[in-house]
């Protein structure tokens, strides 16, 4: 029931803050990775190069699907902005369902930009069913497809180190975020601007996905404080001998 209560509270708070942020946009703290992301998107359009967006191998049936959905929200905005580019972005993933969703999301972006005829189904690809197979299938794309920036966002594991290495060899930009701690440590050592922890879920807000994404960040902050209070409170109660 506690979980249900937290869920309901989060839902109500999300709706309220969404309505509020539609009137007054939030002021977000600066994240260098997303600044670089926005700049790389513009440069790719001007240079005539393409972006490589990898959503990882997150299964929507697992909790890893959340990071995949965050990646899809970002993909929606990037696809809309890069629809006029000579080279459309390539979206890779390690899950079949995620591949289908990525194709559908890219098409939505082209439609919103009025360039639906520019969409190609091959823009969304499944490169492998296993993590290392997915990494092995993603490395040639980062190396041979005239990619100027690699955006890895989603459920990625240790195998993402190979993709980061491939991006580093091509001197292309790498913006990576994962819900996997191992991947985060690898990204910290490999990427120029790594995203740690829940910064992954701020992608939508920083690319202008909408007021709901900004509201989600605020709800997360509220819930985080609640969790902190709960942990400290519980630890204190446990310390004093209150068993619950």
């Amino acid at each position: 029931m506690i979980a249900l209560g937290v869920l309901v509270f989060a839902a109500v708070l999300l709706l309220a803050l969404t309505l509020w942020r539609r009137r007054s946009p939030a002021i977000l703290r600066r994240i260098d990775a997303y600044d670089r992301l926005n700049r790389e998107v513009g440069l790719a359009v001007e240079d005539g190069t393409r972006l490589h967006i990898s959503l990882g191998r997150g299964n929507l049936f697992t909790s890893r699907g959340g990071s995949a959905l965050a990646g899809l929200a970002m993909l929606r905005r990037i696809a809309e902005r890069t629809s006029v580019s000579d080279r459309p972005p390539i979206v890779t993933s390690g899950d079949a369902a995620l591949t289908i969703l990525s194709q559908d999301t890219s098409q939505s972006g082209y439609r919103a930009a009025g360039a639906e005829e520019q969409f190609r189904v091959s823009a969304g690809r499944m490169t492998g069913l296993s993590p290392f197979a997915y990494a092995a299938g993603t490395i040639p794309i980062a190396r041979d497809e005239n990619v100027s920036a690699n955006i890895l966002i989603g459920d990625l594991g240790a195998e993402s180190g190979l993709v980061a290495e491939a991006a580093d060899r091509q001197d292309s930009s790498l913006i990576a975020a994962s819900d996997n701690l191992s991947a985060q440590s690898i990204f910290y050592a490999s990427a120029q601007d790594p995203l740690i922890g829940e910064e992954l879920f701020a992608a939508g807000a920083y690319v202008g996905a909408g007021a709901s994404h900004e509201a989600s960040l605020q709800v997360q902050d509220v819930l985080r404080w609640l969790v902190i209070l709960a942990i400290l409170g519980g630890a204190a109660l446990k310390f004093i001998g209150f068993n619950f």
Partner: protein
Amino acid sequence: MADIRCPSCGKNNPDFLDVCQFCQTPLKPESMLHIGESPVKKNTGELEPILPQWLKDVRQQGRDSAKEDAAEEAAKPKVQKNEAPDLLAGLASQARAEDDEIPDWLASINPATKPKSVSAPTPEPEKDFFAQFNKSEPAPVNEPVQEDVPSWMSDARETPQAAEEKDELSEWFMKASAEPSAPVEIESNEMGWMGDVDSPSFTFKEPAAPTEEKEDEDLSWLHSLEDSSKQSFDPSTGSGQGVAQGKPSPPSIPQPDLNLMPSADLSQPSSQQEDLSWLNELGGLETFTPSQPAPAQPTAQESIPAQPPAQKDDLDWLNNLGGQDVTSFEEKPAQGDLSWLNNLEGQQIVEEPPGQVSLYSPRRTGPLDGKSNEDSMPDWLKSATEEPSMPPPGALSEWFRETDQPPLSKPQPASDELNAFAPASDSASLSSQDVDSLFSVDMPDWVSRPESGTEESSSQKADVQSDGSLAPVDLPSWVQAMRPVESVIEETPSMESQPTEKEGPLAGLRGVIPIAPIGSSRRPKAISLKLQASEEQQAGAALLERILASETNPRPLVTSAFVISQRVLRWAISGLFIVVLGAMIFLRTQNMPVSAALPNDVSAASNAVASLPQNSAVLVIIDYEPALAGEMEAVSGPLLDQLVLLTHPQLTFLSTSPNGSALVERLLTNTKINQPAPNGLDYRAGQNYFNLGFLPGGSSGVLEFVQSPTSAMPSAGVNNLSAYVAIILLTDHAESGRVWVEQLSSQKQIDPSLSNQPLLVSASAQAGPLLQPYVSSRQIAGMVSGLSDAVRYEFVNNSRPGIARAYWDSFGVGLLMAIAMITIGSLWSLFTGIRARRAEAELG
């Protein structure tokens, strides 16, 4: 024709143009007089030749009018007395300081007028020319005959010596005065020839009215002289140029001392002609050939016909006065000699080149000294020596001088006056003949001679100034601005190049209407359509053009070298690992000691396995990837080996990843569970272990399986999860363990029979730390994490199966190598990074 290149548009233009015909840019800016610039002082006398003809005509008209006025006034009193006009009234001697009466107004505007005291003392001119004829002292005749130049004329040439020399003319006059002379009537307008001297230095005196006595004089000799002069008159010389113009009183001319002139018997025309031929010569005007021919100027030929014939008869000889050689009475001098006039000025006479015809001939006057000279000078001559009341036309040039010279301050030679109208650059081109040609009167050399050359002019100026000559007049700035610029004037087509008008009122004239060259400033200035861009703008435009052009240019492919430092480092690391670790594996070294103390988590797992009942069903969940199969097999081997060895359970394998089901056999093979005895535990598929395969749906699938294994996996064969006495999870990521933990926890709350069902986890090194809290919370009964736990567990388990122990030494060496590489490499990278940043900072 030479072309001038325009500095603006770069196109060629004819050299006669001053502005570009395309863009209207001045071609010779340095020679132009621009607005705002202060004009440069110039001597107006130098600009005379470059003046347009129309301006010269205007000026000449002005002079003529001035002369006419002067002549009228001068002639008025004389007309009443009906006496012969003082023909030599204009030839006033500047040396005669006592008798020269220069009006103040004339002296003020006539800088060339010399003070009487400065000039060499000359004898006072006779006020009455004819008075000297009454004198009984005849002058010796022979004297002037023998000499080339009459004494009185020579004296006039050398002013300082004039006083000392004996004037033969005066003697002549004295001799002639003894004879009655017929009155000679000369109209004032006939004195134009006298007034055609454009020099303020010339002063004319009003011809003194001949007295009654003069009327009684016998002037037949004059007539004879006139006749002789007629015959000797050469129209080509242009003598008497100014006579026809009817110019008024001539400028002041040092009047000769006619008293010094040899007397002649006028009653004897023939003899007088012979004797007085010198007079004819005296009246002849030297013809000057100016550098710029002035054909428009009335020549002596034109002027002469204007004279009335009778007067011509009477006065032509006067035209020759002063310009002839005295010694040759029979001769008809082609040119006059006005050098005697130079003597009066104290200047050196400019010898005229032979053959040149001067418009007028200088008149020689006698030594201007001695009272006898004064007495011998006829009245008419005396009057002629008087300065005219009216200023000479040349005096008007003072208006064009910039500086105002005080009157009588520094008289300047007549040449300075002339130089006011001569171009400075062209001063050398004007010779004395040119100046003389401009005038129709017998002008002395010092009057007609231009200030040629800077040296001569400077010397003359110095001499003049030392003698108190007039300083050049500075033109007002507004006049100077109006004055045509020298370069423009130079470029204007000369008179000779201009065609002669053939019809119309200007027929026969040349240069009246100046020819405007093509592209002159009279045309409306065209606006250049060319974009005026600065160099910076042009550079920016060129840069933009290059950028646009580079857009279509193919970019060269950036290829990196095959051997670079990064690849070498990777190869080195890989090679070291392969060589070292491969050797250790190949050698099967087991030198690394193993601790017998089990970690708590491993001990709990071992205890849990030991407490399981015999021949029970155990669920084994394989949730790792093939990439970590080696580690997982090493980690999970001791646990499964102990489980099989102690309890002989029925193993049910389930996989939540697609590849997991394919790894079951490998796991059992490597752990020697399905190996036949004595090497293995002889477990057989379908009897001892079952492989359920892949469980889809992730968490949902796990939940469903946990709730109803049969519904999720029909091949499971059990209806409830409690049928499994234990659940062993083999995973390489914490997420899977968390899912199973969470689902089982919720199910345990529903099914109490699951409360004693242990969950054992065999995790890789990367997942173990994350699952540790679950172990601590007893949600996981026991956990074997990583190779380190496995080797200890294996050691306790009688070193079965031995996979972990085989990797232990290589694992140790590998870790040691990794630590060394990371440490050394990081320090090296730190050092090189600092050095690179320093180099960049130094470069700026």
